[in-house]
């Protein structure tokens, strides 16, 4: 027989793995169940619109202000670096490509995870803690249809719009710094940008990315809320997991998507 200390250690590892796998399985089944409720979320569009308001409209300020500042910093830093090689005129394409391909979807997604994702998790977790979800089931109202699906789709709809707004504000910020303050030629700025960025594949790939991030963050947010331990501590750790897990999921998915999208594009 194994010494009991070693056996206990192995038991703990086994239990941990079993729970982790069970959680992944539960998350996958949960995702399918939420998708099944999609018709309900769109038939009762008022519920979804309310969530678009909370997830999207209320995130507008933070997204637009961050976008503006990110763009202004890109303008300053980009010009400084490009100018060392006498290529300060390429500021437009530098800023445009960085924002449309990467920074727009990714930074908007990170902000969305911390601004809207955490709120969704906390709300659903608290509903569970106060037994509102169980009460609904008692009244034969499916909480997946009434609570979860509208929040999921509200997030998925909001995310691409927020990412596009972020990119636009970033380009505008770079325009202010590059053209108005530093003095890059206006036509060169826009002309370079338009010559170097194509609607297909650059802009569309950015939109696809933000859509995927929206699905990932919204799913993590509603799942963590639904799966939270019904205590104050459980809700708080679920909210933390949403922000950490959502951000990591965005960065990892971004790498995977970039490998598939821009491989072979110069």
């Amino acid at each position, binding site marked *: 027989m194994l010494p009991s200390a070693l056996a206990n250690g192995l038991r703990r590892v086994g239990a941990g793995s079993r729970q982790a796998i069970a959680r992944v399985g539960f998350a996958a089944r949960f995702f399918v169940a939420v998708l099944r409720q999609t018709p309900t979320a769109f038939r009762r569009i*008022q519920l979804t*619109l*309310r969530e*678009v*308001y909370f997830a*999207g*409209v209320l995130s*507008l300020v933070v997204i637009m202000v961050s976008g503006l500042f990110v763009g202004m910093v890109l303008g300053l830093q980009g010009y400084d670096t490009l100018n060392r*090689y*006498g*290529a300060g*005129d390429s500021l437009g394409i530098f800023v*445009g490509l960085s924002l*449309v391909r990467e920074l727009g979807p990714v930074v908007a997604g990170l902000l969305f995870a911390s601004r809207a994702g955490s709120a969704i998790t906390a709300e659903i977790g608290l509903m569970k803690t106060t037994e509102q979800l169980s009460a609904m089931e008692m009244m034969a109202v499916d909480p997946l249809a009434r609570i979860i699906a509208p929040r999921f789709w509200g997030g998925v709809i*909001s995310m*691409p*719009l*927020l990412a*596009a*707004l972020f*990119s*636009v504000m970033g*380009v505008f910020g770079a325009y202010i710094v590059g053209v108005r303050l530093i003095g890059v*030629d206006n*036509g*060169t700025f*826009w*002309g*370079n*940008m*338009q*010559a170097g*960025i*194509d*609607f297909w594949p*650059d*802009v569309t790939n*950015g*939109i696809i990315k933000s859509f995927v991030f929206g699905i990932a963050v919204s799913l993590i947010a509603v799942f963590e809320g639904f799966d939270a331990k019904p205590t104050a501590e459980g809700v708080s750790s679920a909210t933390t997991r949403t922000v950490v897990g959502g951000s990591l999921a965005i960065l990892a998915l971004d790498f995977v998507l970039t490998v598939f999208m821009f491989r072979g594009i110069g």
Partner: protein
Amino acid sequence: MNRSTIDLWVGIFVTIGVGAIVFLALKVGNLTSLSAQPSYRLEARFDNIGGLKLRAPVKAAGVVVGRVAGVTLDPKTYEAVVALNVDKGYEFSKDTIASILTSGLLGEVYIGLEAGGDPQMLAADARIAKTQSAVVLEKLISQFMFDKASSGSTK
């Protein structure tokens, strides 16, 4: 929060979000170009335009007076036909020389206009007769090397 207020805000949000995507498509991408100032069109033909791009600036004495509006190839003469939009208010004499220049070694390519002394001015849609093509660096270097080599062999 009542229903119509939420509808209003969501409407505003979706509208500006879609507007942002349209802006990315049109202004950041290259589906169209916006231009505001009234301008007239000139045409110039070059043997070689080098790296001249659409919307590159047209400068006279270093001042931007217009933009490149179109670059096409004449299928008969194999010359590049460049359309220039020059701001109304700037007029150039008939013997103006248009040349393709580069600001710095790696800088942007633009068209320089050097006005001559002719009292008659170029009308709209006129062609600039005197042009100077882009200097292709590789050709210049090979010419220089060639000269060096041939002068070396005669010694």
